[in-house]
């Protein structure tokens, strides 16, 4: 014990001394080297760090370590050989994950391996594997260890990579544990994997070959499994021997493909053949393209290869089929053309070239619409586009195409869509028929057909067996049978009227069957049972070889014609009745006149009142007879006249309204005047008839339109009306015959020839005149003059003043000319009773032969005389004796004579007349003949009457 203590003390003292030496030596060395030296070496080369440098290095090292550790993004911890955490970086401390492996509290001093091994919960399996891994690194049995594990936060999915590396190489001296967040890498890798998976699935399942080549194209980076199906070689064989693909190329294509292979910098697109190990030949289509890096350099070549063997075969078939097709189309008389999608001509046949005059090389490749379609046809381009857009099975249309010389041909097209072998729309194929001539023929036929339909004649076409095949609308209108009723029937049975016997029909049939047309009148029955007559012509129709194929029957309905003829007959009959009536009236009235005179004489001289009464009764009965003849005369003219006072202005206005409805619009109606009221005595409906007939005549003279002018005015005591047209006019010959009945310049069926005759009759009856003037090509004017009522018309009708009965004793010399003896006697006795001197003769000749001096005062003459008639007689005696007054008498007087009488200012007596009428007219005549004696005669008359009674 004692011994040890001094020993210890001694050693301690020695150690203390040596430490001082060391310290001093160090200080001295620092001094000697000026602080600029870090180490000194002893003779054995051992380095001694000087104190200051030692401190610097130690501090520097620690700082550096901490800085590096802290700078690491990974959560880093340092473990000792037992797994106890020696040191951690700031990131580890900051790490707030809830997971077991790096949970908070895994701080310095804790055994990390034990912690991981004891982990529980979701992350436990990964933690247990980590514990094992760390142990194996710590005991040196593994060089490194790493494990990727999920570590999700509530908001995101995360992955971490745990790596364990030994602390010192080759030494079992602890380990470094790092947790690195690899979420981003993991996600992108997952994405890549998914994308790779998709590509692989696609590439693996595709029948086409995908491939990737290195930049030099000497290495295969990838080839899809389809390679094995197409090439008949394994993918592996291609990877190991990339040049083997060249040896698979068909010998005939090798040269071409090697050339391309060398120059394939931009890509490749083409077909070539390959030969499989089993000797089969395949067509492949390859499309290759460069894959560029960021610098734009090619670093890969990618591509797709597909097996087009079948497609090639189909294309060959299509070509063959097209060839057969074009051989066929080359020989038909139809145009054929094929267009691609841009309407360029890809094919046309010889017929199109012959039709249009173009050469094939001028057509192929040209745009169809530019070359063949008239610029004014926009519809056909639209049709083409519609066809390609809607893809119907077939389309039909017609359009015109231009020939080289510019002529237009109408083509009826049948167009289909043209498809390639793969079913893609490639264009159109059209076959067309040149229907230019056919269409022209059709148009002509249509015109003919329309003409037949429009024809007024009814027509029937039957076949050879007399079955109706066609009827025109005129037929249906005439017969009442519809087309459906008629077609298929036998016309003879259909229209059988029972009028004609079997021989009649047999005759027709024999004639037409022999080829001779038959014409004749035939009566047929309408659907409603009524009969009609028509003029028929049946003509056989022959076909191209001359056989009779059809019969055509053209009919003219004679009903209208028959009606016209009937009207004419009626008119003639009426004319005849008129003449008869006039004749009867003349005779009868003379008879009545004689009776009247006798009755009057008897009455005047009757002593017995009974006799006077009977004579008076006779006179009454005679007057009734006269009224009867008057009615007969009116009937013969078919219209009784109802006269009243008319205003010309009103009549013209009425006519204008009527004409505006009646005349076509190309005729302008002008009405001028009159400025004042012009009253005439007349029948309004007759006046309208006059204006209407004249206007219709004017219209017919102006078929091309013109102006119709109605003018009226006053000239003295007459009103005048003019109707003027701007039509064709007429010549002098026509003018003289204008008013003749049945004279007409119109074509048959259009005019009756009675219009102007009626006008003339009416005007004459109204005491007026009508004249016409015309100039060829300029127009015509009809001028009517009518007496105004302000100017007293000469009174034709017998005028009774109530004093007529007084057959006053009168003086005067009357020359009586009457061929009927009874009449002459009666009148002579009456005039003698009144007191006149009478010279009575039976004819004009006798009267002219008389040498009377002094001359007679009054000539009382019958109008109708044998030899010289009343008018002429009056004329001639008036010439001889200018002071002679003329009174004409008649049982029936024609209008012309009546107007002749009035024109001359003569007087007229309608037979049979009474005494008062006679005395009135004779007195009037005497006043004219001896104006100075009128008053005297008049005053005397009153006493005469008394005396006679």
């Amino acid at each position, binding site marked *: 014990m004692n011994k040890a203590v001094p020993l210890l003390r001694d050693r301690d003292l020695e150690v203390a001394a040596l430490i001082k030496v060391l310290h001093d030596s160090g200080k001295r060395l620092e001094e000697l*080297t*000026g*602080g*600029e*030296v*870090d*180490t*000194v*070496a002893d003779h*054995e*080369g*051992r*380095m001694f*760090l000087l104190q*200051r*440098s030692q401190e*610097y*290095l130690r501090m*520097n090292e620690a700082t550096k370590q901490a800085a590096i550790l802290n700078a690491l993004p990974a959560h880093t911890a340092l473990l000792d050989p037992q797994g106890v955490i020696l040191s951690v970086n700031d990131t580890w401390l900051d790490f707030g994950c809830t997971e077991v492996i790096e949970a908070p509290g895994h701080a310095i001093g804790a055994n990390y391996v034990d912690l991981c091994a004891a982990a529980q919960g979701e992350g436990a399996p990964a933690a247990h594997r980590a514990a094992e891994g760390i142990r194996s690194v710590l005991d040196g049995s593994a060089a490194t260890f790493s494990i990727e594990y999920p570590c999700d936060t509530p908001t995101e999915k995360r992955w971490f990579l745990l790596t364990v590396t030994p602390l010192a190489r080759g030494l079992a001296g602890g380990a470094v544990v790092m947790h690195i967040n690899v979420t981003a890498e993991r996600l992108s890798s997952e994405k890549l994997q998914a994308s790779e998976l998709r590509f692989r699935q696609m590439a693996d399942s595709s029948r086409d070959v995908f491939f990737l080549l290195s930049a030099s194209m000497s290495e295969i980076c990838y080839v899809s499994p389809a390679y094995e199906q197409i090439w008949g070689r394994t993918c592996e064989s291609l990877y190991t021997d990339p040049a083997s693909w060249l040896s698979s190329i068909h010998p005939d294509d090798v040269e071409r493909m090697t050339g391309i292979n060398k120059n394939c910098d931009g890509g490749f697109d083409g077909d070539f053949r390959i030969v499989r190990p089993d000797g089969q030949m395949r067509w492949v289509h390859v499309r290759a393209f460069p894959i560029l890096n960021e610098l734009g350099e090619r670093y890969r070549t990618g591509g797709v290869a597909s097996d087009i063997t079948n497609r090639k075969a189909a294309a060959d078939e299509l070509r063959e089929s097209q060839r057969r097709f074009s051989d066929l189309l080359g020989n038909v008389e139809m145009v054929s053309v094929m267009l691609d999608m841009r309407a360029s001509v890809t094919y046309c046949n010889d017929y199109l070239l012959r039709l249009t005059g173009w050469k094939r090389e001028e057509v192929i490749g040209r745009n169809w619409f530019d070359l063949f379609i008239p610029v004014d046809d926009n519809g056909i381009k639209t049709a083409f586009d519609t066809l390609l857009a809607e893809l119907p099975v077939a389309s039909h249309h017609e359009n015109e195409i231009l020939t080289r010389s510019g002529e237009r041909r109408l083509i009826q097209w049948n167009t289909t869509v043209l498809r390639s072998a793969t079913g893609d729309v490639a264009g159109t194929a059209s076959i067309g028929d040149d229907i230019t001539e056919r269409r022209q023929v059709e148009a002509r036929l249509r015109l003919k057909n329309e003409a037949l339909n429009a024809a007024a004649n009814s027509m029937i076409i039957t076949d050879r067996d007399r079955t109706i095949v066609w009827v025109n609308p005129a037929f249906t209108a005439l017969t009442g049978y519809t087309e459906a009723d008629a077609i298929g029937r036998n016309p003879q049975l259909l229209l059988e009227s029972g009028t004609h016997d079997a021989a009649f029909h047999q005759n027709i049939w024999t004639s037409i069957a022999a080829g001779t047309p038959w014409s004749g009148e035939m009566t047929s029955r309408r659907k409603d049972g009524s009969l009609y007559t028509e003029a028929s012509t049946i003509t056989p129709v022959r076909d191209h070889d001359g056989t009779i194929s059809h019969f055509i029957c053209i009919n003219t309905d004679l009903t209208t014609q028959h009606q016209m003829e009937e009207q004419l007959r009626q008119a003639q009959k009426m004319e005849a009745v008129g003449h008869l009536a006039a004749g009867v009236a003349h005779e009868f009235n003379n008879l009545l006149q004689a009776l009247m005179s006798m009755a009057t004489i008897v009455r005047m001289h009757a002593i017995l009142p009974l006799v006077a009464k009977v004579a008076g009764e006779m006179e009454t009965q005679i007057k009734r007879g006269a009224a009867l003849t008057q009615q007969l005369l009116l009937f013969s003219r078919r219209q009784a006249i109802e006269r009243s006072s008319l205003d010309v202005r009103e009549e013209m206005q009425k006519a204008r309204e009527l004409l505006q409805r009646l005349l076509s619009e190309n005729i302008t109606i002008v009405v001028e005047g009159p400025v004042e009221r012009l009253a005439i005595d007349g029948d309004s409906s007759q006046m309208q008839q006059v204006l209407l007939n004249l206007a219709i005549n004017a219209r017919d003279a102006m078929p091309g339109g013109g102006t119709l002018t109605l003018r009226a005015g006053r000239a003295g005591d007459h009103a005048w009306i003019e109707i003027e047209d701007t039509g064709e006019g007429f010549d002098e010959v026509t003018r003289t015959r204008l008013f003749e009945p049945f004279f007409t310049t119109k074509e048959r069926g259009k005019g009756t020839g009675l219009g102007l005759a009626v006008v003339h009759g009416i005007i004459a009856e109204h005491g007026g005149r009508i004249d016409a003037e015309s100039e060829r090509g300029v127009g015509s004017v009809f001028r009517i003059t009518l007496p105004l009522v302000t100017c007293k018309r000469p009174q034709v009708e017998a005028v009774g003043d109530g004093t007529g009965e007084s057959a006053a004793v009168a003086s005067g010399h009357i020359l009586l000319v009457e061929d009927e003896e009874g009449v002459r006697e009666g009148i002579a006795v009456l005039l003698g009773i009144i007191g006149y001197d009478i010279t009575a003769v039976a004819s004009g000749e006798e009267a002219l032969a008389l040498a009377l001096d002094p001359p007679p005062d009054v000539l009382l003459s019958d109008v109708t005389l044998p030899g010289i008639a009343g008018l002429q007689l009056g004329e001639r005696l008036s010439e001889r004796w200018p002071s002679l007054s003329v009174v004409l008498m008649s049982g029936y007087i024609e209008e012309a004579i009546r107007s002749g009488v009035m024109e001359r200012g003569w007087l007229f007596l309608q037979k049979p007349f009474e005494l008062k009428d006679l005395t009135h007219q004779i007195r009037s005549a005497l006043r004219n003949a001896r104006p100075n004696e009128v008053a005297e005669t008049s005053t005397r008359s009153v006493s005469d009457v008394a005396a006679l009674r």
Partner: protein
Amino acid sequence: MSRRGLLKFRLFVAGEALNSTQAVTNLTAICRDYLPDRHEIEIVDVFREPLRALAEGILMTPTLVKLAPSPTRKIVGTLSHIEPVLLALGLKGAA
């Protein structure tokens, strides 16, 4: 290239100790300023290669050895004082 030829240096240092680091920095600066394109520097860490220091008789670090052109010179220290260094290396004054 200068007619005076290439200068070859060998610098013995003690790891990343303060003076050694300064010496490396200063030598690099001198070469850059005075000997552009005509120098070679070899740095020897005596901790890693203690035997080389022994072989060349280097007792202290940092020590700069001018190997060529001859004569060989040794300069101990941080080379912070440029003038004496240049003189010692024959780059100034003696020239």
